[in-house]
């Protein structure tokens, strides 16, 4: 961690919130995986298992009027629920229903403008450009809003990342470049695709402060995120936060689980799973007397109930079925 940056200590409530969101996020991801395998989701799904802690840490303490660009992994669900978005309309969307947040028009895009979650496209790296605009708008409004910009190690290959880092640092925008480095981009290992061990080395080129944290430890992630958020809110400019995390599953359901062109080994999987984020967090909250075993069980149960309801909403909605004329009328706003 960059020594020039302050640190923060998490309160009890904050820890409980983080743990709860972690458990929720993890169950949501498993639900998505299951539904995809059941043929109940449209398009593709990029499972987040093993990499759920960064999104929770980044987003659990954002305000509703902060901007969020969720990572595509987990299709943004972990980030969004942590920020307080009710994602039932996103599941409905992903199921092709007329109650979907995009009216069933895009399947896997989400859209929650009232939470400042916009999403642009499925182009990797296209999160960066509008981030500059959000940051610039936030700065002009001067209300202390921040921009949480989450994306993967691979996305930093895009020149767009550079342009966004440049402008954010030039104008001291309240943007957090939150890199969820799972060391993989489809089949490509970060080691092969980036010349230095840390993606956050890029921040040096612009004189932007950077932190590297253990992305499997949701509490460590949140501490770093809070430091960065705090800097941004106070008008001190952007921070780069890099979380070293993991991807337990294949890139998206249906693609093989390769590194380069060879299967990732059982040993690699075993090693990854030794640092499963929910397990780590559970050990920690128990050891630190933050939660009891019973409370933990309640949290899991509540999460599963929540998800059941979300699924019921999606399943009970109708398949979106507009006419071509209705669709044509929706291309332009009045």
């Amino acid at each position, binding site marked *: 961690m960059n020594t020039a940056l302050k640190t923060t200590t998490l309160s009890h409530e904050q820890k409980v919130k983080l743990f709860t969101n972690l458990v929720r996020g993890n169950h949501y991801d498993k639900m998505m995986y299951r539904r995809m395998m059941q043929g109940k989701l449209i398009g593709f799904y990029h499972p987040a298992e093993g990499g759920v802690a960064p999104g929770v840490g980044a987003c659990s303490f954002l305000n509703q009027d902060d*901007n969020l660009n969720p990572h595509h992994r987990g299709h943004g669900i972990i980030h969004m629920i942590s920020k307080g978005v009710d994602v039932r309309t996103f599941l409905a969307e992903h199921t092709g229903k007329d109650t979907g947040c995009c009216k069933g028009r895009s399947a896997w895009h989400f859209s929650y*403008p009232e939470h400042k979650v916009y999403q642009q496209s499925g182009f990797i790296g296209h999160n960066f450009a509008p981030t500059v*605009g959000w940051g*610039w708008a936030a700065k002009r409004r001067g209300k202390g809003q921040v921009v949480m910009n989450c994306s993967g190690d691979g996305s930093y290959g895009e020149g767009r990342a550079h342009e*966004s880092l440049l402008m954010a640092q030039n104008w001291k925008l309240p943007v957090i470049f939150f890199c969820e480095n799972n060391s993989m981009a489809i089949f490509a290992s970060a080691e092969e695709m980036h010349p230095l061990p840390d993606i956050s080395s890029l921040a040096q080129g612009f004189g932007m402060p950077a932190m590297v944290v253990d992305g499997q430890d949701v509490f460590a992630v949140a501490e770093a995120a809070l430091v960065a958020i705090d800097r941004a809110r106070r008008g001190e400019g952007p921070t780069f936060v890099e979380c070293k995390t993991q991807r337990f599953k294949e890139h998206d359901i249906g693609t093989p689980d390769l590194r380069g062109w060879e299967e990732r080994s059982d040993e690699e999987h075993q090693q990854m799973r030794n640092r499963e984020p929910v397990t780590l967090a559970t050990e920690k909250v128990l050891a630190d007397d933050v939660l009891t075993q019973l409370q933990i069980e309640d949290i899991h149960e509540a999460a599963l109930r929540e998800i059941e309801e979300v699924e019921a909403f999606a399943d009970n909605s109708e398949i979106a079925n507009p006419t071509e004329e209705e669709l044509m009328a929706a291309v332009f706003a009045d």
Partner: protein
Amino acid sequence: MRTLTLIDAIKEAYQEELRRDDDVFMVGQDIRGGIFPHTKGLVEEFGSDRILDTPIAESGMYGVALGAAQEGMRPIVDFMFGGFSYVTFSECSVTTGQYHFLHGSQRALPITMTAGVGTGQRLANDHAMSIHGTFAHHPGIKVAMPSTPYDAKGMFKAAIRDNNPVMIPWHMGIMMLKGEVPEEDYVVPLGVADIKREGTDVTVLANSLQLQNALKVADKLHGEGISCEVIDPRSFVPFDLETVLRSLEKTNRLVVVDEDWESGSFANTVSAKVMEQGFDLLDAPVTRVTLPDMPVPGGYMEDYIAPNVNKIEAAIRSVLARIAA
């Protein structure tokens, strides 16, 4: 009435809209200093927060507009030369065009994009090509281009007030064209073609520099007793086909002049639509005057591959030579 150049008419549209609405702002490169006169001096009145220069980084620059528009502001993006928009094409075309529709029509993107385009400066392809056809091909973005100072002020104001993304380039070849421009606030709605000259023998559809060329030809042919109706589409998306079809009821002959490459051009779109919806009106095939399918050369060659009065005249004569069915 007072006259202004086309480029100054555009500037007046900016000024009035910047004054009217604090959410309107401009972003581009070197717009404070003013590479082209339409932005010159604006920074003095509106400050460098609203006349914003960025590094040479088109994605980030466009991102200022895209993000700010999602936040409810009304950015005007100046790409300087039209070709530079292609440097961030995936953003300014695809993701911008799809945003409103694909995300459930929850939030519109009121972004105005502009740039100088067209032949006449001998700057070669990347600094000379047209972009209206390409933008018109990708849905979700309105596309328009003014042909007169009057239209320029009114159409730029319409674009800035439109809740949708609008690409509205201006043609460098008529940048200094003078014409009457009211000092009052007015708007020329997007999607409405304009009959710039009435006539009965042949309809000529043309825009910007080529509209001016078409009007010259119409003048000349008038002397020979040939009556040309010259229509300016003004906007390509939405396109006012009705006005063209109505004109064809009278003339039964159509020449489309389009300073863009032939393949995939707006001219072809017009031809195909007229084919489908006005087949029985036609006494001659819709005839097109476009750029040939080659990169726009710089140097002297630009002059003779671009549409011009001679080519327009020849096309008009060729459709008139057809015997009516």
